């Protein structure tokens, strides 16, 4: 039964990692301009105009 406890603890750690990743994305401004981010994918920056 103890193996379940380890599994659960592992899950909790993974969840914390996900949370940390989310906080990082929030802090680095990735939610500031969702519309723009979606549009910029279409821009062809490799070729000079």
């Amino acid at each position, binding site marked *: *039964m103890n193996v*379940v*406890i380890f599994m*659960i603890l592992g*899950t*909790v750690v993974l*969840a914390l990692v*996900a*949370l940390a990743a*989310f*906080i990082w994305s*929030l802090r680095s401004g990735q*939610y*500031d*301009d*969702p*519309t*723009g981010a979606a*549009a*910029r*994918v*279409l*821009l062809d920056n490799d070729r000079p*105009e």
Partner: protein
Amino acid sequence: MTALVSGCPSGLAPATPGAVTQDPSAFVTEVKGRRVLDLMIRGASCAGCIAKIETALMRLPGMQVARLNLSTGRIRAEWTGGLAATIIIEAIVKLGYGAAAVDPGQADGAISRSEKGLLLALTVAGIATAGVMLMSEALWFGTDLPAETRTQLHWLSASISIPATLFSGRTFFQSAWAAIRRSQLNMDVPISLALLMALALSLHATITDGAHTYFDASVMLLLFLLIGRYLDARLRRQAYAAANALAAMQTTSATRLGSRGLAEAVRASEIRPGDRLLIAAGERLPVNAQVVTGESEADLRLVTGEVEPARTFPGQTLYAGAVNLSAPIEVLALAPASQSLMADIARLLEAGEQKKSSYRRIADKAVAFYVPQVHVTAALGFVGWLIAGASLSHAAFVAVTVLIITCPCAIALAAPLVQIVAAGRLFREGAYLSSGDALERIATVTHVILDKTGTLTLGDPMLLQIGWTPDQLAAAAQLARASRHPFSRAIAQAAGPGPVANAVEEHSGSGVSGLVDGRAAMLGRAEFVGARGVDGSHLWFAIEGADPVMFRFEDRLRPDARAAVDQLRRMGLSVELLSGDSPERVGSAAATAGITDWRASATPQFKAQRLQELEAEGARVLMVGDGLNDAAALAMAHASLAPGGAVDVSRLASDCVFSGESLESVPRIVTIARKSRARIRENFAFAAVYNLVAIPIALLGWATPLVAAIAMSASSAIVTLNALRLATGGRRETGGAA
């Protein structure tokens, strides 16, 4: 290549041709050796727009960063060197977009911080819910679980959900505490109580090796509520930004005359009383001011509602919003922009306060009804079980179950979710709500009072197609192109692009003269060109060797004014026209729009008085207006709407601002408001029925954590789905009533 198209290359937004009307240099700030300017862009909506605008700006000398935020419609430009800020705006305007400098808003920053806080709280609650659910499944379905393992799982759930609830629930706890300290009740009180009681009871059960805990229910409740809160905050911010964008397009910077007669560009917000300002022809007055020198004409459309420009003379007081037309004037500022505006608003809102505070929101009524009832029921359950001989802990368990299962969730979400969805739908259609209860008030109106100038009409005069030949129009247009008078602009617009007359001279308050094809010509008032006639909505044009011609003008109705009025009437509303303009013009506008009930020459006091009359008769009035003369009525009315071109005071005094040329926004807004009221009532009806079923189950002690979790999520989902019905079904329902 893309630069050939004016405005959005995808055609998603109309091109916004416009002239550079303000000097943005007052808005430039210095950050780390770079000069920074924030601009509001209008008409940008796709990747092509980003590329077009950013590329154009990056070509400017010294430009370091130019990044367009498509969500907020703002661009931040950072550059080094002596590039003039006006060049930046010109570059954007040339591409076919509207641009205006904005204050790098601190308010915006604050809003996005609280929104980010909510997003973080939401994520924490979400992850915690997932984690706790993982263990709850074992607890719900693992009937052969040994007591020891069960307690271990309970401890794990506790270690996740207690910190998560305390962290993510702060919004609710703080708001509930603030309400209690004012000895009031709001929805956050039962929510906080349910959350904290559930945690306390579950912790007690965990310590005493009990069978049932509510850790899952408490984090899930929190998750649902936070989703609602977050969406609400996001929508509010979007509506705020959109309303700001409308405002930014109108704000002006001004030219201040310094002590040595030096002119400097200042922000409207920096003007102090006693400042001398130079108002060029075509500029809008940023503050209430007194004319010092210069004779001119002023367009008072936004202030009084009169289409015809008025002459101005030294000593006269002009209100903010007046547009100077023919000659530059020097004025003395009487009040700072913010204060004169704030004072106006304060006065207006004071008048309107009584009306609006007397309105009780449906949700508040529900809370006042629901909270005591549930708490009494819970207490009765507690006492009842004690009398029946149950243990103290079992009685407490039943009481807390009642608190949790009667689920503040469905009731807390019932009204806000509907309002969020309705406001989102209005937002997409170009209408920006100021508050949630505005919708409820709009839904219950019985009368609509429309203002004429700028509301029923577009506010710009149009040339009538009678009394002149195309050659005469072309000749007159040469003079008209040199003038900023609205009638002249109407002539220039009718004639299209073309040459400008030579030796043009403006005669303030009278007209313009010049040489057209080598012949002396004059355009202006009757006596100015030497014609016999009265002054009115017309201009006279005289050219050497020919008789004077008269050009007549008319303030054009919004294209769908009649359809909108008809639709309002079909919706069972009585429509009335109330205008400050002259009886003949109001009468003809009313006839064209199909309004039988109209009153002209209405002063602001008369408008307010008429409102009181109607309300005394038991009517609930929806006021639609844009001018300063409507502001008092807008603030006093049961509900009010303002078109996007309205003056600041009117926009702030109204419940909802709609943009665009269509007057059909008015019936559409009312329709959506009525529907959202119906949805809210359905939701409350559902929540009441749900509670009728859930309370007996909880009182009898049958509500296991599994039952609670299913009941809670199911009721929230039903309320949410009902609210979402508002989002779909577009114009078919609102426009197709004919």
